[in-house]
């Protein structure tokens, strides 16, 4: 396989879409990872693969591992992947593949589609009319800590006891108590988030709870307390967003210090793949 420039090329796979949807509404040519190579649509029966050629000198496994550590490179390529996916998802039912799904030869792609045909077909039918939303919650830990202290007679009594202790012992006892308070506050935050998660889950076909980002990544004062994705019917989008907005208003009215944020619609990154992830991410299993 060759690029326009004649260098050996690899095949970069963005997504799998239903052939019938593509044929009903074919897309205008779109720029690929490399400006010289447009995106192409390879038909394999009822499944169409959305691909582009990428140069081996940048995308071979070895080079890719190195390149993803360069932020400028990763930013440009990851955003391209993301933008392309949004354009596809705007028009077609889409199984988005992860960044860096690459084949050495077209024959290998064909083989893969053959192998996962059943799962991909089932997923395309399941994902039709659905989309993914990410919701993050940030909590003011100080507020929850204060509430824990205020609401616990036990802690207040213990604090009075501490005052009367000799300095050395007080130090250790206080440390122990602070840890206890912190754990209680975390538990309250978790409970708070979980109740909201349950509300969102009621509207969802699938959910996945993700890792929270650390403070030094988010660069915010508040700690991320919940990071989850939800697969919803596109027709429920307004209702889903309204639920989040209402919840935010409620948090503000009650001065809980909780901030909510959502992004979307995303293609079903967390609810699809070559193999079906439905079982794993069905509500109640996460």
């Amino acid at each position: 396989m060759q690029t326009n420039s004649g260098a050996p090329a690899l095949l970069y796979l963005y997504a799998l879409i239903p052939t019938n949807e593509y044929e009903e509404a074919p897309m205008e040519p779109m720029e690929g990872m490399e400006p010289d190579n447009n995106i192409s649509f390879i038909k394999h029966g009822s499944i169409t693969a959305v691909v582009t050629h990428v140069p081996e000198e940048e995308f071979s496994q070895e080079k890719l591992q190195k390149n993803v550590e360069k932020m400028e490179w990763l930013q440009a390529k990851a955003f391209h992947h993301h933008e392309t996916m949004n354009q596809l998802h705007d028009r077609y039912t889409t199984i988005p593949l992860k960044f860096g799904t690459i084949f050495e030869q077209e024959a290998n792609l064909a083989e893969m589609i053959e192998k996962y045909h059943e799962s991909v077909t089932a997923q395309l039918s399941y994902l039709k009319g659905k989309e993914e939303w990410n919701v993050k919650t940030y909590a003011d830990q100080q507020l929850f800590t204060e509430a824990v202290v205020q609401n616990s007679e036990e802690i207040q009594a213990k604090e009075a006891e501490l005052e009367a202790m000799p300095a050395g012992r007080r130090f250790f006892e206080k440390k122990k108590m602070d840890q206890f308070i912190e754990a209680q506050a975390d538990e309250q935050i978790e409970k708070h988030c979980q109740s909201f998660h349950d509300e969102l889950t009621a509207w969802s076909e699938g959910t996945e709870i993700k890792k929270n980002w650390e403070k030094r990544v988010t660069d915010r004062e508040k700690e991320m307390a919940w990071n989850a994705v939800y697969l919803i019917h596109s027709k429920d989008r307004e209702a889903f967003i309204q639920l989040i907005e209402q919840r935010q208003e409620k948090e503000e009215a009650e001065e809980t210090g909780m901030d909510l944020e959502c992004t979307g619609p995303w293609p079903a990154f967390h609810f699809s793949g070559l193999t079906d992830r439905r079982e794993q991410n069905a509500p109640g299993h996460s």
Partner: protein
Amino acid sequence: MPQDTLKNREVSLLDVLDSVLDKGVVLQGDVTISIAGIDLVYLDLRVLIASVETLRQAELKTQKEFVSNSSEPSQVE
């Protein structure tokens, strides 16, 4: 501010990476190559945030140059 996010469909690089790299595809055999076990978002946060900051600053600078003759406010945060 969910609405702003929705309207502009503007997501951060971290958001994108958290989705497009999450549990990177790993296929067996000679069929594909893929980024094995990439967990960048969590792995080297310090490097990442430093780079994102730098990029954001660079973007702002570029944006300023672009819009200096325009009345449109900058979209970059």
